């Protein structure tokens, strides 16, 4: 068993850290404050191949794997959780399902645009009445002979307003329940497709989270992803992969909060010495560090198993559950350590605390992760 990073991973870490530090961190507070989608960062990431890390070179990707992808999302999120989720939603929820479930023709048509970052991708599953219970889909897709007609709306869609391509989950046969759900590849320019209102959020405020509206939206026949009636499985498997992304994001947020806290307690002086010299601080830091490291290895393990083509659904659920709850706990502690300063926007920890919360919610709430994990135990 080898737990050390490979040389490629070390080189990648060097690059992504420098990129995060120089290109992402300086605007993190600003895009949060202004609720601005950092398109310029997406363009920079596209140039380097960061928008298609695990996609093979023949499809326009960088030809790396889930482990590098996970490290990328972690390091980006360490300084800006918004940037982390842009990459994660794009890669795990759009590029990955096309690569894993698409026909050769679909892959050739869409992956080069997506994996190169020329196009941004998104994923539409959640509806006003179908959140955790994803089987309650209201969006319908009707076979019109030479095309599909999609009708319905999706909410809380990450990257929505800026995406060019969406994976949309819709009912093709309501009588079959989950077996009547199918997946589609939908271009943003499709007739009848539009983006609705943008959500005002607590955290990850730079990411564009919007409603998608399909009114008699025409989708070409060949854009059915996978087989008809297999959409629910595709969605669930896609979310398994997505959870590695969100877990990496949560891990990054936790680490970022830890970095800030360590820096602060060394500098901040009270009662004549730095607060890092108090044993209460030291013990808490030790506990925080231990939890983050535990989260890191759960995340790495899930990514490793995915790369090894082993079943990883439960590993991804564990990683996401633990990393997201760790992120929440660490950021609350980081704010506490920073005292009054931590509550102000002058320091980044309050932003990290707001950003952390979503990791316990999206791509399967912590409760869903517990369902997945316990189902594995009790089957």
């Amino acid at each position, binding site marked *: 068993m080898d737990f050390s990073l490979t*040389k*490629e991973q070390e*080189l*990648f870490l*060097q*690059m992504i850290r*420098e*990129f995060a530090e120089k290109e992402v961190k300086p605007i993190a507070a600003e895009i949060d404050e202004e609720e601005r989608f950092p398109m310029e960062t997406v363009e920079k990431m596209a*140039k*380097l*191949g*960061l928008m298609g*890390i695990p996609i093979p*070179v023949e499809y326009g990707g*960088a*030809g*790396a794997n889930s482990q*590098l992808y996970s490290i*990328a999302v972690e390091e980006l999120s360490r300084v800006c959780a918004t940037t982390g989720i842009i990459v994660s939603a794009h890669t795990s929820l759009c590029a990955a399902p096309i690569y894993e479930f698409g026909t050769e023709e679909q892959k050739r048509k869409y992956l080069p645009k997506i994996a190169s970052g020329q196009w941004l991708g998104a994923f539409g599953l959640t509806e006003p009445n179908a959140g955790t219970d994803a089987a309650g889909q209201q969006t319908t897709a009707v076979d019109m002979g030479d095309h599909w007609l999609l009708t319905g709306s999706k909410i809380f869609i990450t990257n929505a307003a800026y995406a060019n391509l969406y994976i949309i989950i819709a009912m093709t046969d309501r009588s079959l329940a989950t077996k009547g759900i199918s997946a589609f590849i939908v271009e943003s320019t499709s007739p009848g497709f539009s983006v609705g209102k943008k959500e005002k959020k607590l955290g990850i405020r730079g990411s564009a989270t919007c409603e998608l509206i399909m009114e008699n939206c025409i989708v070409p026949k060949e854009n059915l992803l996978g087989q008809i009636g297999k959409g629910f499985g595709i969605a669930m498997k896609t979310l398994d992969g997505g959870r590695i992304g969100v877990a990496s994001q949560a891990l990054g947020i936790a680490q970022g909060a830890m970095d800030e806290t360590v820096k602060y307690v060394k500098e901040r002086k009270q009662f004549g010495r730095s607060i890092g010299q108090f044993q209460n601080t030291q013990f808490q830091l030790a506990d925080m560090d231990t939890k983050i490291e535990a989260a890191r290895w759960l995340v790495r393990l899930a990514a490793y198993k995915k790369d090894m083509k082993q079943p990883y659904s439960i590993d991804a659920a564990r990683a996401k559950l633990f990393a997201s709850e760790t992120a929440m706990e660490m950021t609350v502690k980081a704010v506490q350590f920073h005292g009054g300063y931590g509550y102000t926007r002058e320091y980044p920890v309050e932003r990290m605390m707001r950003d952390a919360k979503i990791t316990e919610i999206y791509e399967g709430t912590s409760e869903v992760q517990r369902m997945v994990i316990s189902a594995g135990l009790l089957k």
Partner: protein
Amino acid sequence: MNIVVCIKQVPDTTEIRLNPETGTMIREGVPSIMNPDDKSGLEAALQLKYKYGAHITVITMGPAQADKVLREAYAMGVDRAILLTDRKFAGADTLATSNALAGALRMLDFDLIITGRQAIDGDTAQVGPQIAEHLDLPQVSYVEGLQYDGQKLFTIKKSTEEGYQIVEVEAPCLITILSSANSPRYMSVNGIVNAYKREVEIWRFENINIDEHKLGLKGSPTRVFKSFTKGAKIAGQLYEVEAVEAADIIIEKLKEKFIING
């Protein structure tokens, strides 16, 4: 066009800290990086490559670990990488270093040789011009920017204390470039994936045709006689005095620190 870029792996001197009690340097945990000026030189070469087409070779002299900066260069987009390493090269000062590098460069085709102006661990700015001399090439140092006519002619902006100069020189030539000349690109993800799959050529003493007496410690006219640190920071002094006296105290200190002549 063939471009050779000489790069060096250096400790990140901005990360070096002094032990506050002993005043000695803490070397552990200091990351090794590609020297910033050299990285800027590599970027200049890559820009020429994508504009005019060029074959880029990077070469570094150093221990086996210097392999890493060559991998980094591969991940940035160079075509060939050479690690010049041999015990006989060890302990070299700038002249002996330039002898070894010039020996290796003679084995290569080049129209343009690029080096960084200086390395952050030594700050000497000597190796580039010394290589140029050994190879009998014209040199332009302190380069801030360069243009190429696509044939033979380089038009170069050279930084000076008062401003800049525009100079012209034909290939083959050597330039030493400033880190402010451009912003080096990041390694690409695919470049990183392939960096360790490519070959780094190991060149040893036998591969270059240079007299052993011109290399390493033997070939170095200069030696370190002794080295020392500036010492630990002593507790500051606080004065509560009249303004005139305060000004005098400050002036005394500035003289001590060579900020003003006294």
